[in-house]
């Protein structure tokens, strides 16, 4: 059985930048426990002799000449942004005191 607690769910939600209601915390705690309990079948296997696979194919780094190429048009990209100022993404203040 997983030891996932209510406090774990609150902590993980904060890491993921999600604000959960008390009801959602209750529900997710129960549902995530069910899924993690099911995963106990793999958690208990001794697989220490196997390398982990992060990918189905062997990936290699691919290099190319560092030459400028056309990219997405800046105005088109900014046209779908929520807020723009001076050709940049505008956001609320980042930490610190309000100015």
């Amino acid at each position, binding site marked *: 059985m997983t030891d996932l607690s209510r406090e774990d769910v609150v902590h993980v939600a904060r890491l993921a930048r999600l604000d959960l209601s008390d009801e959602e915390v209750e529900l997710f705690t129960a549902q995530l426990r069910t899924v993690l309990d099911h995963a106990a079948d793999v958690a208990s296997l001794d697989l220490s002799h196997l390398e982990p696979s992060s990918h189905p194919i062997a990936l290699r780094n*691919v290099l190319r000449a560092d030459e400028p190429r056309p990219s997405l048009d800046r105005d088109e990209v900014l046209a779908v942004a929520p807020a723009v100022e001076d050709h940049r993404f505008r956001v609320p203040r*980042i930490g610190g005191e309000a100015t």
Partner: protein
Amino acid sequence: MTTAMAVAEAVRSGKRSAREVVDEALAAVAAGDGEYHAFLSLLPDEARAEADAVDAAVAAGGDPGPLAGVPVALKDNLCTRGAVTTCGSKILEGWRPPYDATVVEALRRAGAIALGKTNMDEFAMGSSTENSAFGPTRNPRDTGKVPGGSSGGSAAAVAAGFTPLALGSDTGGSIRQPAALCGVVGMKPTYGRVSRYGLVAFASSLDQIGPFATTVEDAALLFDVLAGYDPLDSTSLPSQAEPALAQVHDGVEGIRVGLCRDLVDGCAPDVVARVQEAADALAGAGAKVEEVSVPEFGYGLSAYYLIAPAEASSNLARYDGVRYGLRVDAEDVAAMNTATRTAGFGAEVKRRIMLGTYALSAGYYDAYYGQAQRVRTLVMQAFDRAYESYDVLLGATAPTTAFDVGAKVDDPLAMYMNDVCTIPSNLSGHPAVSVPFGTGAGGLPVGVQVLAPALQEALLFRVAQVVEAGAPS
């Protein structure tokens, strides 16, 4: 229902105009989709303009391509330049991408016409299309049932006869499972075979784009158009794909088929019976069919539901209200991020982000994510061993036929169990296809799954064609 082969042939020879084909398809959607909700948006102006261009090419004696005038439905996680792409999520409601996905360009070059964008579980997370923020899709075979998911809108569009072809994406079975539940052909290519540039990412080591069609021949035709190297996708395979359509009728004489008990046992009796009949049909056509057990596949579900959420929790960090999509304003950036994500994501997406964040968090990384990656190695090695003795594997696509709308929405684990037969091929990156094979209880369609080693799509389609030919009519 006309096949894509027949439509393209009629358009290329001038017997029908692409414009007429597109107008008919749009009229069929307008008349019928109120009942199914396969489409989230249509592209009538763009589709008619593209059809006129195809007709002009035909009139000028040019070759408009192998899919000339064929309407195609696109899953709404494929970027279409200037046309709304939502991923079934409130967080991308109204978003118009500034570029086309590579597969959208490939379709256009082949003469196909993008008719509209189809409904899906939000960010492709689900197996019933009930997790769409814009309401569920209904199964055209029985509107009380789900169409499967997450590409349920694409499967339904083809099953309803709105378009002969559609594109979906398959991370844990999201093409094959809805294809099975709606009674159409749905195929996942080898990982890296089809470019994912412009596919909104869910779980990057698992996602793959693939075709829906009414016949295996049509699916092979569409696969040939989609396959190819793309420098814009860093996981794209540089090797050329073997053309599948040219070999699709080559038969299965001498092909070794492993009837995989682990992809059959545990399924509903009507599904088990159809898979056995499909195996008999293959044997009757000259294949050598034997039973094989690959018990490692049994661990796939648990591994997948740790790996996919872990990757999703990272991929979906980009929805922060800064560059595109929804923003809910707040006094500082962190509060704005949180307010935006809380308002924009639905319950299943939040659940998966939570699960993935937990599986990756300090103290649990090795026990969950690391262990799941080792299980992935275990499954890949098990496939390799099976393919020493067999050319292809055969099993069920989904454990049951289509279930009732609402039956599993409150029980995530029960919903996840739908993917138990499709997940192994995502973990290994191998191609697999679901072929309709008769019906089960209540007259609902059953899908039989054929699995092949990496890059063996041509063989996969050959075997699938024989399964299709042997299916009860």
